[in-house]
């Protein structure tokens, strides 16, 4: 899978949550806001299912999930 394909899949997934708004690849998904546990969990499950990788406890860090770019690097590092 190319890095562009990974990015597109992440974008498609996020478009279900972030509507009516253009976001760039560095857009901070959590920002200063508190996360919603359900959204966080949905992101983890999406990554595991879509890319068939296991997200270990040590991988559960905001830094790996905070933006499209962060998630893209995390996934490509795991593949």
């Amino acid at each position, binding site marked *: 899978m190319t890095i562009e394909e990974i990015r597109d899949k992440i974008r498609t997934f996020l478009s279900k*949550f*972030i*509507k*009516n*708004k253009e976001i760039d690849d560095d857009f901070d998904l*959590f920002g*200063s*806001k*508190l*996360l*919603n*546990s*359900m*959204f*966080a*969990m949905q992101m*983890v499950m999406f990554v595991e299912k879509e890319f068939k990788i296991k997200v270990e*406890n*040590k991988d*559960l*860090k*905001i830094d790996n*999930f905070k933006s499209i770019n962060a998630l893209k690097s995390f996934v490509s590092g795991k593949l």
Partner: protein
Amino acid sequence: MKPIEERKIKCVVWDLDNTLWDGVLLEDKNVTLRQEALETIKTLDSRGILHSVASKNDFDTAMSKIEEFGLKEYFLYPKINWNPKSDSVLEITKLINIGIDTIAFIDDQPFERDEVSYALPDVLCIDSLDISKVPRLPEMMPRFITEDSKNRRHMYMADICRNKIENEFKGPQEEFLAGLNMVFTISKAKEEDLKRAEELTVRTHQLNTTGYTYSYEELDRFRKSDNHKLLIASLTDKYGSYGKIGLVLLECVENLYTIKLLLMSCRVMSRGVGSIMINHIRNMARKEGAVLRAIMVPSEVNRMMYVTYKFSHFTEIEESDSLVLFENDLTTVQDFPEYVDVKIVD
């Protein structure tokens, strides 16, 4: 499966023909409601046990009959179709968001009970001949009946209403949440909250960091102890109250705060309120200059709490086979989300 004495049923799924009523609806429009079924439904409902339907029937015909009997408001997510009943039972379980071992299924036909038992061995299957005995089963006896348990069905109905609107709403989720006018109240648990607090420790598995259950008496001791804080949270929105939906047990010894238990009712999973509770505790610890730690007992079902802790500035400092100890980095200060009005009551 849990030992019998511990197992508690949260939802009873009813067959219709020759179970809820005598007769087969598609053959006879004038079926009669079975009085013992009606009484069982009302008794269990008053104890906070929910009801649903899994029937092979025509949906519209069966629903209008249920409505005619005045029972429509009792059944959450009725599944009336021609699919295997195990599918219907499983769907109901997922929609209500409870464990499969908290479901009972009542049907007059051995074939249907066997089919459900085979596919879902943890479901308690009951012959409809035994309906009148159902309220006396130990599995149908909650330890306490609280204000929240009596209103449980209404709270779930309000959820269905909210979810329907949420699914139809096209804007960003935050706008939807902002439109709910949510008020989240955190207060010290009072004596009258303890039954509900115990009930929460027993009923909540998915959004529970340790799964420790505490008795009324233990909780009462924590409430009075100088070394503990027992906090309870409630949530309301424009559709009504969700009741008391969160509980935190915090041990405070000198400058070390340890979260022994953090739990949230599954009904508020998508409302971002677990993080509000953690944020409040972080603010408390920061103000007191304390170190904040949390104990987590990971299980097959509570991974979401692990994720919540990890995304709320907690990091593992010790790990053993069954237990993880986290410590919080309190440096990042976060505001409460704008879509919730957070009230702290001392």
